[in-house]
């Protein structure tokens, strides 16, 4: 019996989604604690989400500076002793700033949670923002800005943001050495009080843990000074786009950096799933048209991708790449040709099948371990998705057709209102 190596083994549809919906309990302040236990390793990931994103800041870097100051000392501990004690329990935390919110995450083993958890809560609720540490932070941030300004990719991305949000919008404003030097302690303290202490939105607990752990976390947060975030509609500024093509002189000439994009549909749009798949086919995975053309056919780049990022303020769809400087015009021309093609010509059933199956596999993977589950949970919470959403989503993916994709492409991937930035 010979082995036929030319024929691919039979492929099956995804049988089931390993998606146990998460539960929640309400904390005393009114904010919910969402939780889901699973996996094999006795680890804990606890996230506290605050209305402290970049879009809430008045001056550049205030949000990220405030986040960085959280481990620089509390009423009873210096920054050093806080970190030493956490290290002793093998735990660490970080506070990350995103466009729409900020997330403080504690990572630790369940067996050391009793030691680590009070320190984490103390860091978030009793930070004192010492002047000396602020000046060290400023000094180091200034050095980092100088380095970033030597990177084509950084210049390209920040210039794109400036164009799509507007230069006065918190998400569009460029960072500078002058602005960083001007940051004052009072500004940070104000942001801390308004956006952390009274800006607590919800908590997410994942990993493998027993029910006592939930109670412990609940009682510790309940006895802290955290207050629930109250929706405040008037502090978010509206964006203001400048479309068109923009060429910027690069500090480094070895490659050209480019970003081309526009506003995409929002998360609740009826064509959301179609657009997801369309983006995938266009530039969203290794088998995409952009990768095939610009990398695999022309060899002009190490990687080219398109991204679809639905946000609370804008839903941005964009293409990013570092390309061969000599042939940058060819690369840009080919990108626009692909854009034209995807709107003009029907996408084949085979191409849709590959992207669809790949996407289903990727979803399965994103539900595979408790830590990646937490980002899935966050999407559900932020966009108010139901428990049966995932099942429906898979059905929707299977319902996508060549026709529906063409319609969405014509509507959302046209040449109109494009912002193009080339740093070379």
């Amino acid at each position, binding site marked *: 019996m010979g082995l036929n190596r030319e024929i*691919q083994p039979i492929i099956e549809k*995804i049988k089931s989604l390993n998606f146990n919906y998460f539960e929640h309990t309400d904390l005393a302040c009114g904010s919910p604690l969402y939780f889901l236990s699973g996996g094999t390793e006795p680890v804990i990931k606890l996230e506290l989400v605050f209305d402290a994103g970049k879009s809430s800041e008045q001056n550049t870097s205030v949000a990220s500076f405030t986040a960085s100051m959280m481990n620089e000392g509390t009423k009873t501990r210096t920054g050093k002793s806080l970190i030493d004690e956490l*290290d002793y329990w093998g735990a660490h935390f970080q506070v990350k700033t995103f466009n729409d919110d900020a997330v403080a995450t504690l990572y630790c083993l369940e067996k050391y949670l009793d030691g680590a958890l009070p320190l984490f809560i103390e860091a978030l609720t009793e930070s004192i923002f010492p002047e000396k540490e602020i000046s060290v932070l400023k000094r180091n941030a200034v050095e980092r800005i100088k380095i970033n300004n030597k990177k084509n990719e950084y210049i390209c991305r920040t210039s794109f943001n400036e164009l799509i949000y507007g230069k006065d919008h918190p998400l569009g404003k460029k960072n500078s050495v002058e602005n960083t030097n001007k940051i004052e302690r009072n500004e940070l303290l104000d942001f801390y009080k308004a956006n952390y202490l009274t800006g607590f939105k919800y908590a997410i607990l994942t990993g493998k843990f027993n029910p006592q752990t939930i109670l412990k976390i609940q009682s510790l947060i309940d006895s802290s000074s955290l207050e629930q975030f109250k929706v405040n509609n008037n502090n978010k500024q509206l964006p203001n786009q400048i479309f068109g093509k923009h060429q910027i002189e690069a500090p480094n000439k070895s490659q050209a950096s480019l970003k081309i994009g526009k506003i995409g549909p929002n998360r609740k749009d009826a064509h959301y799933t179609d657009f997801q798949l369309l983006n995938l086919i266009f530039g969203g995975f290794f088998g995409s048209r952009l990768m095939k053309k610009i990398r695999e056919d022309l060899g002009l780049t190490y990687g080219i991708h398109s991204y679809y990022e639905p946000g609370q303020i804008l839903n941005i769809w964009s293409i990013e790449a570092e390309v061969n400087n000599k042939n940058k015009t060819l690369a840009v021309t080919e990108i626009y040709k692909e854009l034209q093609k995807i709107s003009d010509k029907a996408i084949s059933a085979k191409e849709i099948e590959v992207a669809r199956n790949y996407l289903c596999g990727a979803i399965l993977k994103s539900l595979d371990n408790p830590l990646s589950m937490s980002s899935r949970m966050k999407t559900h919470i932020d966009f108010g998705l139901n428990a049966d959403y995932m099942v429906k989503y898979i059905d929707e993916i299977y319902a996508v057709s060549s026709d529906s994709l063409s319609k969405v492409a014509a509507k959302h991937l046209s040449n109109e209102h494009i912002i193009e930035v080339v740093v070379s």
Partner: protein
Amino acid sequence: MIEFTKFSLGNGLTVIHHEDKATELCVLNLLYKVGSKNEEANKTGFAHLFEHLMFGGSIHIPNYDEPLQLAGGENNAFTSNDITNYYLSLPANNLETGFWLESDRMLGLAINPKSLKVQKGVVIEEFKERYLNQPYGDIWLKLLPLAYKKHPYKWPTIGKAIAHIKNANQTDVNDFFKQNYAPNNCILVVAGNINLEKTKELCNKWFLPIPSQNILSNPLPQEPVQRKLRRKTVLADVPANLIVMSFHMDQRQSKNFYAMDLLSDIMGSGKGSILYQELIKKKNLFSEIDAYITADAEPGLFIVEGRMLPNTTFEMAEEAIWIVLNQVKSKNIDENDLKRAQHKNETSIRFGDINPLNRAMKLAYAEYLGDVDLVNKEIDNYLAIHTDDIVKESKKVFKESNCSILSYKIKKDGSK
């Protein structure tokens, strides 16, 4: 505890099976025992270029990626000094596609002149993107030939120069494949929602028919003991001066390796570390400073790397780092510092083990190092280290004669 079963096929392929019923996925990890250290000095960057060519189609299958994506799978690969590692994950019910793809490209490649030309272009862009297109990106291109004189670790995985990649031809590629890609030069890990029986069945079906090859294992030139301090200064368009000090250290399997790994954490990991506290906060000399080890299979490097503030001179920077290193050598390391580093290590190992793919990679690499049980012994290996071990070893390592210093200097206008 990571449970596994190890067996081998008649053609010399080593297989490690690791079952995890909690996942809906399966993983294949293929570690080929070839890295940039196995390259010839005038054909560097080859192992990595070859990794790219492995996706250009095999004897019976013109395209690698598409059938995998059709089966809902994802894949990637990386090349290091020591190995080339390929991995994929799939929904468990579609795993056989993975066996089909991986066995066919182990059997043989179908590289044509066009795919060779394109992949050379892609790798050259990768070279630029990672090493040339950012400030300090070429540190490894400068540091490694300073620290290593004989051992092939003296060039980075990407290669010594773009010209080596440009010059690669079809004959080189064919030879390289025959030399290195064979069942008896590979470790296969099958992990996820699959039982041992099924694993054996699929391995026998797809991999057993592949003939073994005569693998030449030329002994690598050993690095002679360094006898005196080495220095190199690089002028570049960078915003701040940077100093890198590197020291030769003991091999991966020795107790000393674990001691120095912990020391690199104590010295350089995070805001609580010695270097951060002493040189950033107390002495105000650096804007960033870090200590780490290269963690190669053969004797690697312990590295201290610091980006200096505008008023810090290279002399001040170097002196300040030596003061810290000498303190480590002369004073005992604080017991609590060690405990913290050990606990942090345990946490990071446990978090790493969450993902079946990580477990598969760890199993393959431990087997490559010669002891697959290492996956379950590492936490204890770290816990077994005492402060004395660290002090003793640091006395051997932190000597001026064992040190190579790279000074990365701001190029002023007009200078070359």
